[in-house]
Each structure stands twice: as C-alpha cells, then as structure tokens.
C-alpha cells in the first residue's frame, strides 16, 4: 500500500507537474504589486471579516485587509527570502566546505568539529536561540538561518571534494602546473555543482517552513507586513468564527512545501542524490 502510494508520487509526471505549480506560484507572487486587487496593509475596520466578494475575492481579515492581496504579498516574502537564504548559505557552505576538504589536515579538523557541534543541536532550536540573541525581525531571522544552514552544505561539499581530490585528474592538473586556485575553480567546483538543483528544491521547502515558523512565533516578519506564518499567527484568535484566516495561508504553506518536497524527492530519486538527514 505505502509503496504503491510512493510509486504514484515518484512517477515520471511528478517533476513536470511540480515544476509547473511552483513556476506559477513564483510568477504570481513576484507579480503581486501588479495583480493584487487591494493594498495588503490598508486597514479599514468598516470592512472587517467580510465574506468573499468581487472586491475582496477571499474576504477580509480582522482589520479589513484583503486576504488575497496579503497572500500574494506574503508569498513574495516567503519565496524570495527562502531563495536568499538558500543561495547565501549555499555560497558560504560551498566556500568553507571546498576549502576545508581540499586543504585537509588541521584546518579541516577544526572546521569540521565546529560543524559537528552545530549539527548536534536540532536546527530549529538553534535558530530560535540565535533569534533570541539578535532580537525579533526578518533580517535577524535570515541571518540566524544562514548561520545555521551553511553547516550542512559545508559538510556535504567537503565530502564530495574529498572523493574528488583522490581522482587522478586532480593529480594530473597539479602536474600540469595548475595553481591551487585554478584546480578548485576548474576541476573541483564544476564537479560538485550538479547535485545542487536537487538539494536546492529540498532546502527551499525547509527555508520557507523555517521563516513561517519564526513569523508564527512572532520572531520573524513584524506586522503589518504580510507573511504566511505571520498571517496564521494573526488569524488564530478568530479560529472559531473565521477559520479561513488561518486556512488560506496554511494551505499556501502546505502547497508550497509539499510541492517542493515532492519535486526534490523525485529529482533525487532520478539523479541519485542523497538528501540531508
């Protein structure tokens, strides 16, 4: 039973379907300023908690703000900053992991023991702790996420570099008189990059989840800026009368994360890349 469900999800069609869903989501959230029907932060108490209408396609929240507009604008923050976190922590991880693996010896030992230390904590707890130190706010959350996430990338790249380093073509490049920098640039980095696409899709899901979780706890995006996690947080007081306030952003988060994960899973199945544990 479970394997048959699994087979459906990891079939050939998953990759194109998920890509299309994500592509559409990405485009409409990035176009939010042009396609959103209303101002997402304009408060109008006369229109609070309205049911769906032509003017407010998904109704309004407790401050009379358009739900659809807030969802679209919120997606911009979730998706955009998830991408930022992914790219920046990946860059740090790539640099440190490649350097550490290529250099080896004492430097490698010190850097990797540090990574082990960071990985010993559940990452969410560590992020919470860091945000606690930096204080609440979106930049602080992003900084905390970056500081924690790069460790996983560094570990992964180091492992790949270690196995690459023993290949004869690295020795051949040294014999050809190539400098260390040239070897890293021409021979190591191009050979560790391909699995990134796969990793990227898996990691984006995590990053969105983390940002939303922080915002839900009131540590990330501050009101009135719309963000999915923050919207759930604000809507939770109205769960009895207007559950849709939590439902819409919740569904969006679920849709995005499930799609990213299915896509990542399917890609890693196809290209044989291991996901992080």
């Amino acid at each position: 039973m479970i394997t048959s469900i699994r087979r459906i999800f990891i079939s050939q069609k998953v990759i194109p379907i998920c890509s299309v869903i994500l592509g559409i989501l990405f485009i409409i959230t990035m176009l939010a300023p042009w396609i959103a029907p209303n101002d997402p932060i304009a408060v109008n108490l006369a229109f609070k908690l309205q049911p769906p209408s032509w003017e407010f396609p998904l109704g309004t929240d407790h401050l009379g703000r358009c739900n659809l507009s807030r969802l679209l604008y919120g997606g911009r923050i979730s998706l955009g900053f998830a991408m930022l976190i992914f790219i920046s922590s990946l860059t740090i991880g790539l640099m440190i992991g490649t350097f550490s693996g290529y250099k080896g010896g004492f430097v490698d030992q010190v850097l990797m023991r540090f990574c082990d230390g960071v990985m010993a904590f559940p990452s969410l707890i560590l992020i919470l702790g860091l945000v606690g130190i930096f204080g609440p706010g979106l930049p602080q959350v992003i900084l905390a996420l970056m500081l924690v996430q790069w460790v996983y990338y560094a570990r992964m790249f180091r492992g790949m570099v270690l196995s690459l380093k023993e290949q004869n073509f690295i020795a051949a490049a040294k014999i050809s008189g190539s400098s260390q920098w040239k070897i890293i640039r021409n021979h190591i980095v191009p050979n560790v990059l391909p699995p990134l696409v796969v990793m990227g899709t898996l990691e984006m899901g995590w990053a969105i989840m983390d940002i939303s979780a922080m915002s839900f706890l009131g540590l990330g995006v501050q009101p009135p800026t719309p963000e999915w996690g923050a919207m759930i947080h604000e809507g939770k007081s109205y769960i009895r009368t207007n559950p849709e306030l939590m439902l819409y952003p919740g569904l969006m988060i679920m849709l995005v994360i499930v799609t990213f994960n299915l896509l990542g899973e399917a890609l890693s199945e196809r290209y044989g890349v291991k996901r992080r544990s």
Partner: protein
Amino acid sequence: MSLLQINEVTHSYGSRTVFNWKDRSKNILSDISLSIEEGTCLGLLGSSGAGKSTLGRVILGLERPQYGQVLFQGHDIYTADKQIRQKIRRDLQAVFQDSYSSVNPRMTAERIIAEPLENYEKLTVAEQKRTVIELLERVGLSEADLKKYPNQFSGGQLQRINIARAISLKPKLIVLDESVSSLDMVTQTLILELLKELKANFGLSYLFITHDIKAAYTISDRLGVLEKGKLVELYDEKKQFFTSEHPVANELRDSMLAEHPRFRSVRRA
C-alpha cells in the same frame, strides 16, 4: 648529472587527526635510491602493493617523502623555491593507469590537452588550438576529436589524450604509472610503439611503472624490481632480469604467461 636522482627515499602513510597526531604506521617505501639518465627508460616492476605507485607520486612531487631527496635536474623538487619548482614541474609529466579518472569529465579534449599549455606557454587562442590539433594528430587522433567529452572516447583513445597532454610541453621525463595495463593487447602494443617513437624523436626519458614484464621489457633500457617498498634489484642491462636468481625476480618471471600455453615451463620452486 642524472636527469632524475632519488636518494634514500623513505615514506609511510598514517592518518593524522586531532586525537592521533603522529600516527606513522607502516613504511610504503624504504630507503630507495635510483637514477634515470636523459633519453633512457627505467622499467620498475613489482606486484600489487609493492609501493610502485607511491614512488611515482613521490617523484612527481605529489607526495612529500618523510626522508630522502628527489633531485630532478639537480634541484630538490620539494625544497627548491617556488619558481624553480614551477620550472622543473614543466619537464616532469605523467600518465596514469586509469585513463577515465585522469581527465576531468566536464572538459572537452581540447581543454584537457591545453591545460599545461595555458599554464606555461603564453599562446594566442589560435596558436593554442593549432598546437592541440598537432598533439592530437601526433597521438593518432584527429581534429574532429577536439570538442568531444571524455565519455565519447574509448579507454585507449583517452589514454592517447593523456599522453598528448603529457607531451604537450615537450618534457624531459614522463612517469608512466601502469599506463598501458588497463588496455587490451592490441591497443597496448600501439601505445607502446607510440611511446617508443616519441622517445626516439624527442629524446624523452620514461619511468615505466608496471607489473607487466613484457611491456616493461619492450620499452625499457634498464629494469628495477620493487618488493615491499624496497628496491631489491636494479639491472643496468634489461637482459639480466632473465638470468637473475633473486627470488622476487623468479616469482615475477614465473608469473609471465608462456608464448604458447601447452609448452609452459614447469614452475620453479
């Protein structure tokens, strides 16, 4: 002065970690001295694990030995200053056993062969391309192969590309570490002929590391036998190998396949 001279080289591997800083367990090479004259080929025989490849890496400057010296053209390749090292590096090239792992899978044949040229010769794009084409033709490939990736070549063709890369700077010494061992008999013969021809034309010297006695005998002027990290025999005339009474030489000789299986000689005790 010999082209290459190594004096009392001793080396061992050990894993060094924070917790075990000085683990130097077993000697891979112990007290090896030998020399190679210009324009000659030294064949180095030995069974698996004898330390042949490690010796190759030590000579190529990839693995600093714990004790001993490696002198190339009179300079110690590990202690000479950077400029001299960079200069002698150019005259010291290598071809490894596994032709597939010796080339970056993401580079075209052109870029692979051009790598040493980029580092040493300041050529224009057109000159470099012409040189690469010449090199390809020299090793029996053609211009059509320029833009191909390693997975489009056979093992023998890739080994030719490795050879083209090794001779691109007209080096003085090439270390051939089991370079023909993984190829089929026909290709092996062709590559050996090519190597002999290059040796005659350019006055190249080789260090031919192998376990294949016939291949070593075909190409070498002198033969050495390595056993458990020691250079146990060194013959100035390669014929001496066949009259040697050393047990390791005997063993190697007996492992040779006879020309014709039915007439295989009785194994010596």
